[in-house]
């Protein structure tokens, strides 16, 4: 009975990887636990172990192949004496594909990812060359550039140095800047957040990485009571130029404690700035701005977006203004306001809606606090309708704030109630189908747009 060896997923968000090396060759006997091959993602190199016994009958994907999708059969293991050619090699692909979709609801968004919206940011000079890079690379480059520029900038957090970052955002920083400036901490969020704020009080510019913002709840007292409030409480004497960054929100299949969106939490706090970029260009330009900002900045990344590629302007010093939204797609019929991974739903919905003759204007907030309300209001004055899109919970969420702002500043321009598309009001479930239901969807956005446009 031939068994397919499938390209494994090494993390909840991995979608593809490179097959770098076959350790076993065709005809070799393999036992459960033997290393068959080495594969590599943008985060790590890992070994593929056999889980079955037999003979490596056929290698389907040769070594050196790039971008092998998760769950692609890469080899066939056959029993002793079995003819590999008699085994249905390609046939198992179909049954494998079905669970693959269910297992990674994010995979749907992936193919559309390398879309770089063509609108020139007003900050980028005309004629600038663009390079394609992932959000992950953009974040790393932003930190490296700022660390080269300013000796007071350092990065600390769990696994940021020798491990090269749990999500490989700090890859190569230890090698370039050494262990004085790239510091592995114990697993002690409350403590090292406080150490970071104290160092900032003394004039340094720490970048504190949380492995995920879920763990920053342990540290939220230091973030809010010490970092956000001290400038005010000291009458302007003591400030903290500090960035707290890391992945925020749901990854994939990691359940409730690892899947919370904190955008609304931090945006509630005066004394903080809150940035949540979607594209690689914004990630780079805004992280550089955050590091230079004399105030504490909460920089909310998204694990699923880390591997997405975008066009980033090739400039020596690309810094974007914090607090300015971007019109990601112009339109006249309805305004979609979103940020971070919410943009993937908003942009895809806008594509679909265009086919139906509805031109949606999509605003990427980029910064949650201070919120660029004038840009939203200007758009709603044009469209008369608005739908907000976020993965976070509905009550007191970012969408709720936008609704309140529009009541206050654009009431007379509205032709329909503003609707919110949000994550459902439940802790994130683990089961693939329930998780998918708990998150917003493109269909939810389209339905909301139909409701506000009465079409």
């Amino acid at each position: 009975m031939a068994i397919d060896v499938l390209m494994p997923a090494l993390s909840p968000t991995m979608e593809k990887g490179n097959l770098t090396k076959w350790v076993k060759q065709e005809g070799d006997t393999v036992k459960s636990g033997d290393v068959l091959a080495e594969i590599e993602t943008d985060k790590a190199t890992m070994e593929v172990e056999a889980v079955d016994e037999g003979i490596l009958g056929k290698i389907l994907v040769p070594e050196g192949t790039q971008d092998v999708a998760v769950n692609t059969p890469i080899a066939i293991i056959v029993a002793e004496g079995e003819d590999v050619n008699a085994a249905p090699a390609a046939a198992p692909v179909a049954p494998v594909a079905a669970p693959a979709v269910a297992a990674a609801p994010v995979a749907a968004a992936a193919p559309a990812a390398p879309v770089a919206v063509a609108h020139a940011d007003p900050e980028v000079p005309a004629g600038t060359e663009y390079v394609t890079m992932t959000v992950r690379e953009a974040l790393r480059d932003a930190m490296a550039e700022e660390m080269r520029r300013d000796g007071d900038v350092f990065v600390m957090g769990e696994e940021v140095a020798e491990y090269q970052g749990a999500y490989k955002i700090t890859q190569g920083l230890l090698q370039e800047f050494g262990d004085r400036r790239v510091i592995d901490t114990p697993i002690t969020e409350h403590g090292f957040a406080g150490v970071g704020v104290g160092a900032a009080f003394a004039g340094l510019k720490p970048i504190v990485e949380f492995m995920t913002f879920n763990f920053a709840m342990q540290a939220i007292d230091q973030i809010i009571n010490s970092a956000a409030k001290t400038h005010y409480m000291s009458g302007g004497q003591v400030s903290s130029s500090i960035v707290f960054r890391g992945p925020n929100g749901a990854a994939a299949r990691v359940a409730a404690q690892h899947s919370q969106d904190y955008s609304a939490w931090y945006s509630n706090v005066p004394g903080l700035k809150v940035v949540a970029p979607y594209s690689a260009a914004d990630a780079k330009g805004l992280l550089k701005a955050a590091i230079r900002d004399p105030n504490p900045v909460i920089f909310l990344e998204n694990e699923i977006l880390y591997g997405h590629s975008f066009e980033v302007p090739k400039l020596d010093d690309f810094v974007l203004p914090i607090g300015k939204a971007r019109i990601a797609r112009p339109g006249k019929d309805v305004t979609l306001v979103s940020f971070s991974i919410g943009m993937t739903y908003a942009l895809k919905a806008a594509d679909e809606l265009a086919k139906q003759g509805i031109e949606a204007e999509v605003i990427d907030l980029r910064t949650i606090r201070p919120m660029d309300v004038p840009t939203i209001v200007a758009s709603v004055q044009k469209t008369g309708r608005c739908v907000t899109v976020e993965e976070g919970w509905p009550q007191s969420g970012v969408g709720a704030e936008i609704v309140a702002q529009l009541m206050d500043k654009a009431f007379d321009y509205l032709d329909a109630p503003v609707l919110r598309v949000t994550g459902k009001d439940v802790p994130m479930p683990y089961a693939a189908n329930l998780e998918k239901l708990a998150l917003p969807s493109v269909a939810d956005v389209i339905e909301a747009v139909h409701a506000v446009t009465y079409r």
Partner: protein
Amino acid sequence: MAPRKPAARAATAAAAPATFTKEEDFLAYREMLLIRRFEEKAGQMYGMGLIGGFCHLYIGQEAVVVGMQMAMQPGDQVITGYRDHGHMLATGMEAGGVMAELTGRRGGYSKGKGGSMHMFSIEKQFFGGHGIVGAQVSLGTGLAFADRYKGNGAVSVTYFGDGAANQGQVYESFNMAELWKLPVVYVIENNKYAMGTSVTRSSAQTDFSKRGTSFNIPGEQVDGMDVRAVRTAGERALAFAREGNGPYILEMQTYRYRGHSMSDPAKYRSKEEVQKMRTEHDPIEQVRARLLNAHAASEEELKKIDGEIREIVNAAADFASHDPEPDPAELYTDVLR
């Protein structure tokens, strides 16, 4: 990493404190008296409704901050919790500015926006004044991180109480401070009561000098009512940290005469207990007696100091009572830089 020599631990049973010169005793007397009189005045003004909210007085603990300050060098930082008036005065912050902050006036160190628990002075390297119990321990460790990063030779003197010593982040900070050999002296002011809960009811290990044991941080217990003992231990600890050996813990055995805050009737202890500390161990009376007996100072010399201190405190109270409240426009300033 080389194992720590147990030498420092042996210092727990410290030798008799070094004697002070007459000038040193005069300085200590003056500094402690300023804190005592300032706090008495603050208590009085609280009673008059001029000071609002929480107000935690330092009366009884004066020898701790004054002795530590005598051991410190310029550039060393100080950070503490909410019982912070004494620390500020010891670092040389102006009594008028501190009192005006207590009354919420524009001339206060935080322009009236911080109050009793939240004052700062970059000039004096005083980093607050923190109202969340234990938070200053991580922050003070961060100040030490910056000292090591900059290589400036300074030490962070991080004060906290026996109550804060039970907070989790204290131990997270201990771990990092020792791991990275940060120049920090943790001064645990054990005044016997965390608000109304005595140390024996809240702490499994009541010898706070041992709280760093599992991190290999040396510690010692110090008679925190004797300013000489404090300075001697402080010098030893500061030198240890400054030389790159990492953190050091000093448990200051002290006592607060007043309640936890102004609103605390202090029914968890007897009047006799308080009275015994006042009559037998008062830090200021000890110095006063030494000045009169050992140093042959005259009553007139001491009276002169008393008068000067009263003048400073009265001027501070007068300023704090008459300085205007912050301009309403200040509501929205200093939120962001």
